[in-house]
């Protein structure tokens, strides 16, 4: 006699998913950078992977992003930056989070970031860098991995 979990529908989706813990991720556009297409694409992919995605909108300062991340108690911040100012702005964001006792929020970055800059960024607290050509599934997998660690 087959055992059927009555709270799951035929696709295995939990019908009582209401208060299941959700991953909350902040997708942030930092600095003077008007390109939001990538951020929106990644936001949609993360949402479709079952996460709660909060989007900051364009031209946010590190100060604003840290405030939003703390209010929203996100697990991860995904910063999108294509302006070239990443070496200034990303470490500043990580520093602010540490100062506000939110150093446990993981920060990843995407956009136009030269490979040579990645070691320094990782030193300052960035957990992963995803340049052009990144598959959205890779970002999803990475987020799921760092959440569980």
């Amino acid at each position, binding site marked *: 006699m087959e055992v059927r979990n009555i709270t799951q529908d035929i696709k295995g989706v939990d019908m009582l*998913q209401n208060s299941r813990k959700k991953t909350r991720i902040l997708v942030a556009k930092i600095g003077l950078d008007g390109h939001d297409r990538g951020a929106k694409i990644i936001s949609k992919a*993360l949402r479709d992977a*079952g996460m709660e995605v909060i989007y900051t909108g364009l031209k946010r300062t590190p100060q604003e992003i840290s405030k939003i991340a703390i209010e929203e108690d996100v697990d991860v911040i995904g910063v999108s930056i294509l302006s070239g100012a990443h070496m200034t702005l990303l470490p500043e964001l990580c520093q602010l989070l540490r100062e506000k006792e939110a150093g446990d929020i993981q920060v990843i970055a995407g956009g136009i970031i030269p490979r040579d800059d990645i070691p320094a960024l990782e030193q300052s607290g960035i957990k992963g860098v995803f340049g052009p050509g990144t598959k959205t599934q890779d970002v999803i997998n990475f987020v799921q991995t760092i959440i569980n660690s």
Partner: protein
Amino acid sequence: MGLVDGMLKGSVRALGKLITLIENESPGSTEALKKIFYHTGNAYVVGLTGAPGTGKSTLIDQIATSLNAQGYKVGILAIDPSSPFTGGAFLGDRIRMIRTNEEQDIYIRSMSTRGSLGGLSAATGNVIKILDAFGKDFILIETAGTGQAEVDVMNQTETTVVVAVPGLGDEIQMMKAGVMEIGDIFVVNKADKDQVDKLVEEIGKMLAMGYRSEGWVPPVIKTVATKGEGISALVQEILNHRRYLVEKGLLQDKRMERVQKEILEMVKNKVSSGIISRITEVNAIPQSSLNEILSRQKDPYSLVEEIVNHLPPFPRY
């Protein structure tokens, strides 16, 4: 209980983490809520409802900064729908809250409905209590905005603001059962568009035809939220409505009714989740029974009676 103490002392980090705890119904959440409850009772809750695209987020941004400038402490809950398939959500309301994002003192939290229908999430009531305990004087809630009668908002808020814009066929929208009855204040936003006066007139006519037991006549306010026009009139009406409820003793009645509903709802939820666990545990609905029902060898009603009659007695859930 570190989070609760931290929140009561004013830590925004603790506040954020506490809301997550309660939203996830994590271990310790009931204990936290019990402690938090004794610090509640001060906040006044205003809900904004209306179809997507009517400008609710922009309006909340303006209302919040206006109240903040008058010395009130403000918190905002922005609720968006979750996907019924993936459970995920895109919470984009706060993008439009440009001025409040810059205001250090105004707290904004984005929430997903997490499967609830009715415009709010199941945790909204408890999150309101946390913001209340944190010291907020006003809590502004933006519902998920289906445009249909979002009755949950009525149960959770003290003043309900219904937002419409001209040109969306709103005269018919407004006639749908429930929308007219739930509004304490009506806002026609984007009032610089065509047909605004026609909509204001339509709403006014429908309100005149309706009946309000508590005697409050809902005002209709024109706004252009992006330009800040009409905002001070709107804020004034919110304060007027609050004063009206207090003076007539209606606020107390509302709160009494809300507590009653909350308790019933919580009892219902606790019992039903206990029952669902139990029937899952004992495999009370095996595939074979489902097959029998589909092939008309058995009816579902009799199966339900069998299941219920075999449930262990309380309080074994």
